[in-house]
């Protein structure tokens, strides 16, 4: 037992703080007024505060990017700074992967690959990049507070003052999570900002959690990832959307959900004020959503379908519209949105009744993946929502009904009732590039082999998937008593893919009689009505009109 005395020789557990102080001391000459560092001194600052082997985070999700800091990190002296262990949500920028090519970084733990997914796979096989793991967002955020706490984080914000207070506003996204994990374990946080001002609209991150602010030479990059042009929605997608609304939303009375990115979910959003209204569903479905500010939600919001939307991030062009609808969105005292990915993902994991999205491939068992043989695409947030949250305890109608329909529940829980999240994949049987969506074996297996992964990267596992919607109809997988019947239900809606051609008419007939498979006809959906005339907005311009001129679409979506 240690002695209590004045000349205590026990190890002082404050080495990190001392190390941080020493690093910041080395950087002291680079500072201007307060916490301001000129952009010319960025590389010198990074060289002063980062050490070889550090765990480093570069902020960037699929929306805002600390792009200037990422580029600057590529310019450091690699004889001093090397073998960095990068931990970050996403690696969508070329500069993120250049770090590995340049020998500055060695190991990567991440969640989402985006456009660099091909290089991630290539670098792994060439030995340039050592992959820790591919995570979901919440899982990675959790590890920031466990075994992957960043020593240095390079983040981004719209505005800072000279005390280091940050305004992250509309695109707050991951910033609070990264800063909290880093700073409260004595790490160093450097922020690139678009503007250094005297007074901020509001303080999103307190200045004493920030070590340096740099006004970047140009504003950080934001990708309008969640904007879908209604002009590109096809009649087939509208048919799928009608089947979803009637066969699932109405059938279960789903009030809370997340919509994955894609033209199908955009079509559903644009059908709420038309087909949804016709089915009398207003107030009964889609009242609470966890969703980025999708422009295609504007008509539904304007016709009072939605109570609440909480956002993971922002969406370029939606700033003014969102700010003017504070009854619906989460708006700060300054009048602008604050997004927060960690909270939105938490709600998405525990509180939502349904996740609906698309995928590239579904195998004969119902496992689905967006991985291809040569791209480590990652998961992002879909798996947190596209699964049944085992820790959920509150009940809602849709969740209870989905659970009650599970014939296999008693095999695990005896007579104990339990609900289940609806996890829906809406796909055309032949997807992008006319490739079959239904396959015998996922390409994820080949990727696991090519990139030496422990497991094939599966976005949604078959046991979590409850429904598949295709142009052939709806498969209610949650109503299947066993794997054989699940596989038969999948075949029944797989159309003319090789999997679908194995469907036996007799078997499909039995599944229809058992309400496990429903065709458009069974659901009373007339495919001839599935035309673009059904859409509440047929173009981006229509969305601007719906928004009363408040939606300001990015240039690439403007055709007027």
């Amino acid at each position, binding site marked *: 037992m240690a002695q209590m005395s004045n000349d205590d020789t026990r190890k002082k557990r404050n080495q990190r703080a001392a190390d941080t102080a020493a690093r910041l001391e080395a950087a002291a000459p680079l500072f201007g007024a307060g916490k301001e560092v000129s952009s010319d001194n960025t590389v010198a600052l990074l060289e002063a505060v980062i050490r070889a082997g550090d765990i480093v985070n570069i902020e960037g999700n699929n929306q805002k990017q600390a792009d200037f800091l990422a580029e600057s990190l590529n310019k450091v002296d690699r004889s001093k700074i090397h073998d960095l262990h990068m931990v970050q949500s996403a690696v969508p920028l070329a500069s993120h992967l250049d770090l590995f090519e340049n020998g500055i970084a060695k190991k990567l733990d991440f969640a989402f690959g985006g456009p660099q997914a091909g290089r991630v796979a290539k670098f792994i096989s060439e030995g340039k990049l050592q992959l820790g793991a591919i995570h979901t967002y919440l899982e990675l955020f959790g590890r920031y507070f466990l075994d992957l706490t960043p020593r240095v984080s390079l983040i981004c914000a719209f505005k800072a003052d000279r005390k280091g207070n940050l305004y992250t506003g509309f695109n707050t996204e991951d910033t609070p999570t990264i800063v909290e994990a880093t700073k409260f374990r004595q790490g160093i946080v450097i922020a690139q900002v678009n503007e250094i001002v005297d007074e901020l609209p509001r303080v999103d991150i307190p200045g004493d959690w920030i070590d340096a602010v740099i006004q970047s030479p140009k504003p950080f990059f934001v990708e309008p990832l969640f904007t879908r042009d209604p002009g590109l929605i096809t009649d087939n997608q509208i048919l799928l959307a009608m089947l979803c609304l009637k066969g699932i939303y109405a059938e279960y009375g789903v009030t809370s959900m997340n919509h994955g990115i894609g033209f199908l979910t955009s079509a559903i959003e644009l059908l709420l004020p038309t087909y949804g209204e016709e089915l009398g569903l207003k107030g009964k479905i889609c009242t609470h959503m966890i969703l980025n500010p999708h422009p295609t939600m504007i008509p539904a919001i304007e016709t009072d379908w939605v109570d609440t939307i909480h956002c993971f991030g922002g969406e370029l062009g939606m700033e003014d519209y969102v700010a003017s609808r504070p009854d619906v969105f989460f708006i700060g005292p300054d009048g602008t949105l604050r997004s927060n990915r960690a909270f939105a993902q938490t709600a998405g994991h525990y509180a939502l009744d349904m996740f609906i999205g698309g995928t590239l491939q579904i195998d004969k068992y119902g496992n689905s993946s967006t991985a291809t043989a040569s791209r480590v695409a990652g998961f992002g947030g879909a798996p947190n929502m596209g699964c049944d949250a085992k820790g959920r305890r509150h009940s809602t109608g849709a969740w209870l009904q989905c659970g009650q329909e599970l014939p296999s529940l008693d095999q695990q829980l005896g007579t104990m009732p339990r609900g289940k999240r609806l996890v829906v994949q809406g796909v055309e049987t032949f997807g992008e590039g006319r490739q079959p969506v239904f396959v015998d074996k996922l390409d994820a297996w080949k990727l696991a082999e090519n990139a030496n992964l422990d497991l094939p990267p599966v976005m949604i596992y078959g046991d979590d998937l409850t429904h598949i919607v295709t142009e052939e109809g709806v498969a209610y997988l949650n109503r299947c008593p066993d794997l054989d019947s699940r596989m038969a239900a999948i075949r029944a809606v797989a159309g003319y893919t090789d999997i679908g051609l194995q469907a036996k008419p007799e078997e499909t007939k039995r599944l229809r009689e058992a309400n496990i498979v429903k065709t458009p006809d069974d659901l009373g959906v007339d495919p001839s009505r599935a035309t673009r005339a059904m859409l509440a907005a047929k173009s981006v311009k229509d969305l601007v009109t719906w928004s009363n001129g408040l939606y300001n679409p990015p240039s690439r979506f403007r*055709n007027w």
Partner: protein
Amino acid sequence: MSKWNDLQEHSFLESNARDRALGIVDDGTFTELAGPFDRLSSPHLELLGDAVAFDDGLVSGVGRIGKTPVFVVSQEGRFIGGSIGEVGGAKMANTIKLAIDFHDKLVADYPDLSEEEKPVLVISFETGGVRLHESNAGLLAHAEVMDLFQKARGKVPVISLIGSKVGCFGGMGFVAAATDVIIMSEFGRLGLTGPEVIEQEMGKEEFDSSDRALVFRTTGGRHKYIIGDANFLVADTIAAFREKVAELAPLPVAAFEEMRRVGSPETVERQVRGVALAAEMHPQDARDVWAKAGNDDPASLTDMPLAAFLGQVKRLSV
């Protein structure tokens, strides 16, 4: 509801060539000439091993609006960008020729014919100009059409409709300019050299073709209406285009002469004054021109609802 009724509220932008032709004239009056069942397809494409279309990407025919016979040419952007080849070009030229011959015969047989009973020609443009696979034939068609416009002048008014996805570019941009009147929607684009080619020749600083907002601000319907290259700006429905055509069709041919933007000493002088103004102003953006026309807040004009735009926009006069 008949198909024709459905078509009226369809987006003009999204409608194919045949739907535009059917919908622009009165219900049930359209007769297609040299249609797909006649199987007149391009011999050049076949030689090159490319896919052909039985209408060669162009719908031609005749219908009626009220008492006015309406000859119709409608281009299909989804077939090789609406490009003009030998067969499509011949269909276009012959429809104009037919309209002129019909006019002459009608006037000769019925000297007391009212203005509204005389034919008009409507061209729904969706094209990038000459089809490069058959360039000589395509160019020849352009020349023939221009020549026929001169023959039609004073007899058969030629009305341009521009509001389809491809826009109206290349040689067909000249052709549209030479018609009597141009009706556009805000989604229509009219120009000569396409945005990508300008960027390729002059550099990204001169014109960034990936900046869609810039492209539309410079070639789109609102700008063309402000600077006077388009006579009328209408909503994006077949009904709105049809309504404007129906309003113009009964007018005496002399009224069309006043709507022309080129082709007389006065219009040439106006064009020259426009060129002089451009040289003096050196506009960096279409909005500079809108401001010059007297619009105090030019940036607001882009997203303003169409009715509000038409209500308050000031057009350039030189």
